């Protein structure tokens, strides 16, 4: 038995379609998940026990269930309430919900790590809680939460493979289809692996650039400080 690249040459449109759908689903689930995550994080930080309890339960429930079960419960549960939705839509929503619980915890931890006085000084001059978040807390938290958010996003992209089990024709599903036609699992899944790797590599690279860009403002202000700059220069000198 030899590695047969002809299979890949013959079926590349299917891989391409699958990859494209995986990317689309990931982007949509990310947007949905992060929006929900921020909302749940802010809910959890509101004064009063009820909103905090609601946010905590949301996170606890979604984190306690394996993703495939979340997916099955929604996909097979919705028809009971008379709602029949296309599998890709259900899968995307389920993926977004799953990720939102983790995003919520990342955002919440990021905000809690900031000294409370930052929020209070914004509130004291009359900013609303949302204005304080937007102008004072958010920009300071953003950089810190990029690395953990990237982790979660990569996990989520890989979890999207599970959507193949409810017939969403994403990358893994197409891989299974090609495998069924060719009986060449190694060739197929080697190709699928490379494509997933490419996607996650692109996301990680973008995240890294974002992190650097958010850090540039800080770095620039440090290098403008002559004392700090001299220390940084010394470090660079000794590193050589």
């Amino acid at each position: 038995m030899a590695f047969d690249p002809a299979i890949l040459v013959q079926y590349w449109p299917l891989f391409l379609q699958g990859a494209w759908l995986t990317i689309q689903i990931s982007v949509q689930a990310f947007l949905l998940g992060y929006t929900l995550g921020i909302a749940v994080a802010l809910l959890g930080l509101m004064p009063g026990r009820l909103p905090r309890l609601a946010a905590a339960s949301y996170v606890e429930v979604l984190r306690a269930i394996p993703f495939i079960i979340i997916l099955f419960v929604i996909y097979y549960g919705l028809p009971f309430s008379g709602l029949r939705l296309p599998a890709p839509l259900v899968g995307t929503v389920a993926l977004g919900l799953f990720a939102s619980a983790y995003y919520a915890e990342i955002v919440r931890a990021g905000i809690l790590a900031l000294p409370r006085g930052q929020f209070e000084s914004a509130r004291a001059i009359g900013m609303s809680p949302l204005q304080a978040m937007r102008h004072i807390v958010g920009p300071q938290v953003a950089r810190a939460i990029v690395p953990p958010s990237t982790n979660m996003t990569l996990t989520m992209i890989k979890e999207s493979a599970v959507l193949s089990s409810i017939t969403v024709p994403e990358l893994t599903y197409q891989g299974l289809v090609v495998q069924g036609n060719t009986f060449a699992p190694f060739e197929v899944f080697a190709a699928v692996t490379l494509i997933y790797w490419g996607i996650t590599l692109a996301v990680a690279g973008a995240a890294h650039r974002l992190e650097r860009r958010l850090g540039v403002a800080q770095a620039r202000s440090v290098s403008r400080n002559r004392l700090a700059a001299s220390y940084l220069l010394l470090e660079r000198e000794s590193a050589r």
Partner: protein
Amino acid sequence: MTIPALKVSGLTKRFRGVTALDSIYLDVARGEVVTLIGPSGCGKSTLLRCLTWLEEPDDGFIEVGGRPFGRAVVGQVVHRQTRREIDALRPKIGLVFQNLNLWPHLSALENVARGPVVVLGRKRAAVEAQARTLLARLGLERQMDKHPHELSGGQRQRVAIARTLAMEPELILFDEPTSALDPELVGEVLGLLREIAATGMTMLVVTHEIGFAGGVADRIAFMDQGRIVETGPARAVLDNPTDPRLRAFLGRVLPSSPRVTA
């Protein structure tokens, strides 16, 4: 009778059964400088936090320039103001925090300008021009584009004060403005407070600097265990304290004065 800049009546705050503020009454007239002194833990900082509604008082009323803040009596009913109503009055009460809480991701200029733009909805160009004038007046014309960590302690203090002044408050509350400073900067900041007082700004200053309290303040209020125990013209309070607790406190903080034991 003119309307006082600040009128506090029956202000009470409890933390889990511990009474931090016990029915505080305090009026501050327009242009008056009042210093609040007292042993640590007596409730001075809690009072300032309640006056800005960062801490919600359990009882009592606050009026700023004649307008009720936080709670109002409408007819016979005490009406708790909405968050929006409270936020709308907050710019009128400036608070300079003990640890300043400058925004590290913004330049000095932006620390000052962001409030009027976001909260008061002013035009950015006009606000920036005003902020530049303000910072220049405070001697920071060359520091405007620097971030807080590039500034010295005294400069940071000036930015914090400028940030508060930019909101055009009716009064400013200072929470121990000299406690976070190196000793040689204390004089500089006290001089600055004197300058601001000279412009006619109404000020309520929590301080440990009895010298400042005596030299600049029109009035001194002495707090102990959540109550204002004694209040009066600055010199009178310092020279002829009547309350034994105030005498004991002054005995501890003024080494030159005769030691009085409680």
